[in-house]
């Protein structure tokens, strides 16, 4: 149990498999179009990763992760949109130099809150800080008042609905229902051609692994154990001298920041951002990815995001009407049949076989004691 290693053996296998698939196998076997689709799926893996910490570990179900995904995505999209709206690109507009949707809505100068998004440094900070601060405000308002469980889930859902309505309603400032389209360059570097898509894919995978590292670090500290403790016996944690609200706020903010990084990568990889990735439905879908993959498992949740989205693409290509039913059925199946998701199935059926394989290959005294201590939690 006193595990000084960063990954135990089964996690190490998970890490190597994921790294091999994302860094080597997929880039070598897929064409750029499909690889770009994987990049899109992976943006949701960031959200799922955050939900593992917040929901799986902390027991805080947020049905509003789309809000943070959207805030991150919009921050990135605002920067890209400004760059795409140079005076020379927009000279046919009645006010050149502002984004096209503003011109269509009779706005004649760039709004004040858009100004700082000329700077990439500011944009990167905003991608982290805007959703982080927003989560801090919501978290403080809710958790300090001991609002939790279902009530919290419903409120996050309401926030997602409100933000969608706000974005759609403020068309002149946000691009409305169409979102921000026609994003072209990042500091003069065109993000649209194939080679750029490949580079962006790798940037995203590296970022994902950085986030996995952060999540794993948090999980291994005492804070990770307090999150688990809090999920089970909130009062006992409180009466052990901890401010439960602060720990919940922390987990919620971390989940928000991860989701925002995913959103920003979405804007870069997919080339647009719209309110359809902010609202209630996408937020719930993000929870489903996490549940399918396994909310207690970092790698499981990432696989959940990749596989469910892959299924979504393949099913929608052949049977567009069936997809939503499929998603619903999948969620019901997860809740009823395998509550720990794919990672639970892995831990129950695949892991024991691997353990047996290892055990028969090198049997040395005392080995078994370690395996019990390492392998017991289903991660």
């Amino acid at each position, binding site marked *: 149990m006193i595990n000084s290693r960063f990954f135990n053996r089964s996690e190490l296998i998970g890490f190597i498999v994921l790294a091999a698939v994302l860094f080597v196998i997929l880039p070598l076997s897929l064409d750029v179009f499909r690889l770009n689709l994987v990049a899109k799926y992976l943006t949701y893996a960031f959200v799922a990763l955050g939900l593992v910490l917040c929901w799986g570990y902390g027991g805080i179900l947020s049905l509003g992760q789309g809000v943070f995904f959207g805030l991150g995505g919009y921050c990135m999209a605002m920067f890209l949109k400004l760059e795409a709206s140079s005076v020379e690109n927009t000279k046919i507009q009645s006010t050149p130099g502002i984004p096209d949707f503003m011109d269509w809505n009779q706005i004649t100068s760039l709004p004040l809150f858009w100004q700082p998004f000329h700077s990439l440094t500011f944009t990167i900070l905003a991608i982290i800080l805007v959703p982080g601060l927003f989560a801090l405000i919501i978290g403080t308002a809710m958790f300090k008042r001991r609002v939790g469980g279902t009530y919290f889930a419903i409120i996050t859902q309401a926030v997602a609905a409100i933000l969608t309505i706000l974005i759609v309603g403020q068309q002149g400032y946000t691009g409305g229902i169409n979102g921000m389209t026609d994003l072209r360059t990042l500091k003069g570097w065109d993000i649209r051609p194939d080679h750029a898509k490949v580079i962006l894919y790798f940037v995203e995978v590296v970022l994902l692994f950085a986030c996995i590292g952060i999540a794993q670090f948090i999980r291994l500290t005492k804070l990770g154990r307090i999150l688990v403790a809090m999920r089970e016996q909130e009062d006992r944690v409180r009466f052990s*001298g901890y401010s439960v609200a602060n720990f919940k706020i922390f987990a919620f903010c971390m989940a928000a920041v991860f989701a925002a990084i995913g959103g920003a990568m979405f804007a870069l990889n997919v080339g647009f951002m719209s309110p359809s990735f902010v609202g209630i439905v996408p937020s719930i879908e993000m929870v489903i990815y996490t549940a399918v993959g396994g909310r207690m498992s970092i790698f499981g949740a990432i696989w959940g995001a990749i596989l469910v989205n892959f299924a979504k693409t393949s099913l929608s290509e052949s049977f567009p009407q069936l997809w939503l039913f499929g998603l619903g059925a999948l969620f019901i199946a997860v809740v009823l049949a395998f509550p720990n998701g794919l990672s639970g199935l892995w831990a129950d059926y695949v892991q024991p076989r691997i353990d047996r394989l290892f055990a028969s290959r090198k049997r040395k005294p005392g080995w078994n004691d370690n395996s019990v201590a390492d392998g017991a939690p289903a991660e």
Partner: protein
Amino acid sequence: MLVGHQPKEFLLAVSGLTVSFDGFKAVNDLSFYVEENEIRVIIGPNGAGKTTVLDLICGKTKATSGSIQFRGKELTKMKENEIVQTGVGRKFQTPSVFEDLTVFENLEISFPRGRTVFGSLTFQRDQLVKDRVEEVAEMIFLKDKLNTYADELSHGQKQWLEIGMLLIQDPDLLMLDEPVAGMSVSERAKTAELLNRIIKNRSVLVIEHDMKFVEDIAHKVTVLHQGQILSEGTMEKVKNDPKVIEVYLGH
């Protein structure tokens, strides 16, 4: 009841404490004082407000009026985690331990260091922590179960684990709500032995129904009835109080 500056020797001074739930006064103008190193047992029939009194002291329930002074600090205005940090530990009636964590991790969480978000991120499991956890685990008869997940423990072992989690906090005032309820005879004897060992150098406030157990450990007994004190004093005095016999011991 006069609320004023209490003499220094009182560790805990409860005065004029009242809490009402929708008009029902669960605790009504209650005053009592606990000295340093005193073992006080609260007894009384069901619904007398015993658990509520502990809830009020540890901050789980907010008082409607009155004051609770602990070492001169007013507890009624503090948050639960601040009250714990001042040195008040509370064990709940049903064992509340973290079942998805091991015995070691359960005890480690209660170790009084790194209690902020940042502190828990940078918390190191150093030798001091390990030694202290092992020391406490030995006291609560769980030394060979450090790596066991708490959901595999028996009811009695969970109760001990929770007592251990309080011990590791090293509180000046330990509050125990029915520590031997639901235990087997042999567990009960072991628990009595454990309590007798841990009550040294601290004050303890115990709720208990087991009169044999009360007699064994109590310095002073407070009998509650309908949110008020019916009788207070040594076990001998309380046992022979006709009012107490009528409402409680007579059954």
